[in-house]
């Protein structure tokens, strides 16, 4: 009751302040205003994206113009609104102010709205303000509305997006909302022209009988201090500013110009009275807003230990509590609170126990489907390249009497190397489409959610999972993505882990080897590499954190999951194409360059007595000799052959080049061979059988593991150096090589005992 009295007193005070104005008295009868020839001004305000401009267009039609507000660089649309029937023969001037979240301005746009509603005295303010409120996002809109109510300018609420709210299960009653607010509320659908006449009627009625709005009830303690401050600022400053708004602004510590320091100090003192004397004295309890307002004591007992425990937070807190009460009175949420399909599905997909197994099963399905579906397409492309394409290239080279070195470069290098990679295009396309389907459906967001939980459990920073997931596509943007991490330590740690995330370039090698050696289980073998990649990230991450990054604190993180949706062909198609295109562009450039370099090094004889340039057997060239020097290091891992080490050398440059180097070193496209699909596979099988002494499977697995764990490519090294510095990049590279070799040897040695 005391609150009601205070509110009534405030209304009287505001009306009295308005009556003091020398001209343009808004309390005058609207007919008088029309007779005087003055065109009343109605301001349209609201949060961004609430349908405000749509409403403005519906109300003014073509009678509008857009321009800078005088003295500001803010675009404002103004138009003439001719509601009928009305006493306003010249219509009303409707001003579409920029979308605003708050009357505590954080941009010139918001500043303009604030100034127009609270500054320049009543002459400068509109006669009525229409607050556009989005029914689907009422809480946020009510917060802003509560600030507008403080200005004392008569308010009419235009309730938009009622249909959107209904689709979300929210039934918003305009009548109940009007009762809760004490302000006229009109539901409008501007696109359909619905509710516009009612809005006009409400605005004209407000112009005819202007009533300051009922301010939001901020609770007894705050209202008491606000009322005291309001009466202080009304004297002297009430001519210029809206008194209640100014009182709350000063309480919140806003830098309002022309306010005497004494008044500021009184506001600060009021704020201090609202803050707790001893924050630690109160015991923690439930924080539900329902436990507030009506039964609260007059002085706050606990405001916690947050640095945001300031009067501004108290006022915001009170506004949200008021909004909560209004929502409870005006919105029927029963349908919205029922579990949706997304909720029900998420109970399984994001569950603590099932989330990770489901994620792994989904990814296994993706890789198995990819390898299975791609096989016939790959075989067809391989046959095309080995047959017609190769014959055509040979015929052209013979027709132009191309020298031997040029034939070797074109047939061995370009047709062999680039051709081998082209056979992977169907595979990559299928995988990108499947992943895009998962992403567009909303599942990948859930995958990130469950992976985040695992990373936290093992002590890695929460947001780290994002660049790591990007790394499954390509490590380079993933490294750039570490910049989203706030702490330098997190960035360095994740930057050192990203190379262990198996990128799509490595996938081509896995698929080639898996299809040659694992047949129908190729998908499972590829999937195992991805699982191993995750385990490596976890294991190395824990190790590095214990050794190098002991002081890292965990970072709080909350994720906002989007609802599921039916994937659209446009999004899936575009995403798949973008990724495939990027892969082809990168791979194309890298492979042509690597093929040329390998060809050049393969043409140079190692020492004398091996023939001249271009006539040396590949094995005895500079390239072959280097590979032969390295090869013994891999004997404990079961693949100590120069062909394997040669492909690992070019793999250091780029993993896309591994397959093409295999094709080059085995000379599978050399003219005179019996070209047939799978000739590279036959050569690989022969090599691994020989080097592993019959333990082919463990040797191939060891090779794949080494390929997974060692340095991804030169571009990644460059990106790593840019992100984490030279020293850590070198350290990381050394660790990668050591880990890769140790793992490969372990896999082979243990595997040889089993197979």
């Amino acid at each position: 009751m005391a609150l009601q009295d205070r509110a009534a007193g405030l209304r009287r005070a505001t009306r009295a302040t308005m009556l003091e104005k020398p001209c343009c008295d808004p309390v005058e009868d609207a007919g008088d205003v029309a007779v005087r020839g003055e065109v009343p001004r109605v301001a349209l305000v609201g949060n961004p994206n609430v349908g405000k401009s749509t409403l403005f267009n519906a109300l003014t039609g073509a009678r509008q113009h857009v321009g800078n507000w005088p003295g500001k660089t803010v675009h404002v649309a103004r138009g003439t609104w001719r509601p009928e029937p009305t006493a306003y023969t010249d219509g009303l001037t409707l001003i579409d102010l920029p979308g605003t979240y708050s009357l505590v301005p954080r941009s010139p746009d918001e500043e303009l709205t604030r100034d127009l509603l609270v500054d320049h005295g009543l002459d400068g303010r509109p006669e009525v303000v229409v607050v556009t409120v989005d029914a689907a996002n009422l809480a946020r809109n009510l917060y802003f509305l509560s600030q507008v109510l403080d200005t004392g300018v008569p308010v009419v609420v235009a309730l938009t997006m009622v249909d959107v709210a209904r689709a979300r299960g929210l039934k918003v009653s305009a009548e109940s909302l009007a009762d809760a607010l004490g302000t006229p509320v009109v539901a409008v659908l501007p696109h359909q022209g619905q509710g516009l006449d009612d809005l006009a009627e409400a605005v004209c009625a407000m112009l005819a009988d202007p009533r300051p709005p009922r301010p939001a009830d901020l609770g007894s303690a705050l209202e008491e201090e606000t009322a005291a401050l309001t009466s202080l600022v009304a004297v002297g400053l009430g001519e210029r500013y809206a008194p209640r708004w100014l009182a709350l602004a000063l309480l919140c510590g806003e830098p309002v110009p022309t306010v005497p320091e004494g008044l500021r100090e009184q506001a600060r003192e009021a704020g201090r009275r609202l803050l707790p004397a001893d924050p630690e004295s109160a015991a923690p309890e439930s924080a539900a807003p329902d436990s507030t307002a009506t039964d609260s004591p007059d002085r706050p007992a606990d405001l916690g230990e947050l640095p945001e425990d300031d009067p501004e937070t108290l006022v915001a807190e009170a506004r949200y509590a008021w909004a909560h009460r209004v929502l409870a009175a005006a919105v029927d949420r029963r349908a919205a609170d029922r579990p949706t399909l997304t909720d029900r599905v998420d109970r399984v997909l994001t569950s603590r126990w099932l989330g990770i197994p489901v994620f792994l099963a989904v990814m296994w399905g993706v890789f198995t489907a990819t390898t299975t579906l791609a096989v016939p397409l790959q075989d067809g492309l391989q046959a095309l390249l080995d047959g017609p394409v190769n014959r055509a290239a040979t015929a052209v080279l013979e027709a132009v009497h191309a020298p031997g070195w040029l034939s070797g470069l074109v047939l061995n290098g370009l047709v062999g190397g680039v051709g081998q990679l082209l056979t992977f295009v169907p595979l990559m396309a299928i995988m990108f489409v499947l992943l895009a389907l998962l992403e567009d459906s909303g599942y990948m967001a859930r995958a990130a959610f469950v992976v985040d939980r695992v990373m936290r459990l093992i002590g890695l920073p929460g947001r780290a999972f994002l660049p790591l997931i990007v790394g499954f596509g390509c490590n380079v943007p993933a490294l750039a993505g570490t910049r989203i991490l706030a702490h330098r330590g997190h960035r360095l740690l994740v930057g050192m882990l990203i190379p262990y995330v198996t990128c799509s370039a490595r996938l081509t090698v896995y698929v080639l080897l898996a299809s040659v050696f694992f047949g129908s289980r190729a998908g499972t073998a590829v999937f195992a590499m991805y699982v191993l990649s995750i385990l490596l990230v976890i294991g190395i991450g824990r190790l590095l954190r214990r050794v190098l990054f002991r002081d890292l604190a965990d970072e709080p993180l909350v994720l906002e999951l989007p609802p599921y949706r039916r994937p659209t062909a446009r999004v899936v198609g575009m995403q798949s194409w973008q990724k495939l295109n990027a892969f082809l562009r990168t791979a194309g450039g890298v492979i042509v360059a690597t093929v040329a370099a390998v060809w050049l090094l393969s043409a140079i004889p190692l020492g004398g007595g091996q023939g001249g340039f271009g006539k040396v057997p590949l094995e005895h060239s500079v390239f072959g000799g280097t590979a032969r020097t390295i090869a013994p290091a891999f004997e404990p891992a079961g693949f100590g052959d120069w062909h394997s080490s040669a492909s690992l050398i070019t793999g250091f440059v780029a993993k896309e080049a591994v397959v093409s180097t295999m094709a080059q070193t085995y000379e599978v496209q050399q003219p005179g061979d019996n070209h047939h699909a799978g000739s590279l596979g036959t050569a690989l099988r022969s090599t691994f059988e020989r080097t592993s002494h019959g333990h082919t499977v463990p040797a191939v697995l060891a090779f794949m593991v080494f390929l997974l764990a060692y340095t991804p490519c030169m571009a990644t090294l460059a990106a790593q150096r840019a992100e984490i510095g030279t020293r850590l990049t070198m350290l990381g590279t050394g660790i990668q090589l050591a880990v890769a070799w140790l793992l490969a040897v372990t896999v082979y040695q243990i595997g040889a005992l089993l197979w």
Partner: protein
Amino acid sequence: MVSLPWRRHAPAPAPSPVGGGALRAVLAEIRAARGGGVSLTEVAQRVGVSREEAEAMVEYWVQRGALATTDLGRGCASGGCGGCPSAARDGGPGCGTDGPSGPVLVAITVRPRS
């Protein structure tokens, strides 16, 4: 209210007699969300407000500079492709992350206290 035992929760602040405490409780819940796999819906349930209210409160704290929201749809650095080795010659993305995006995951994180 869902109880998640594997999460480490700091106690939510007691209700403020002035305003109810939900606003600061949302912030406290987010600051305490160190266990991974925490959604805004769970935060809203714990605080006792609707999801829409929790979203509005998060926006408030973002404006106050206490929280930051990051669109995790692409994962690239906020500076764009300019400093990325994968950038195309025209300055656009060379990594295939261009084009339309599906439903986007939004991360709400705490800004370091000054």
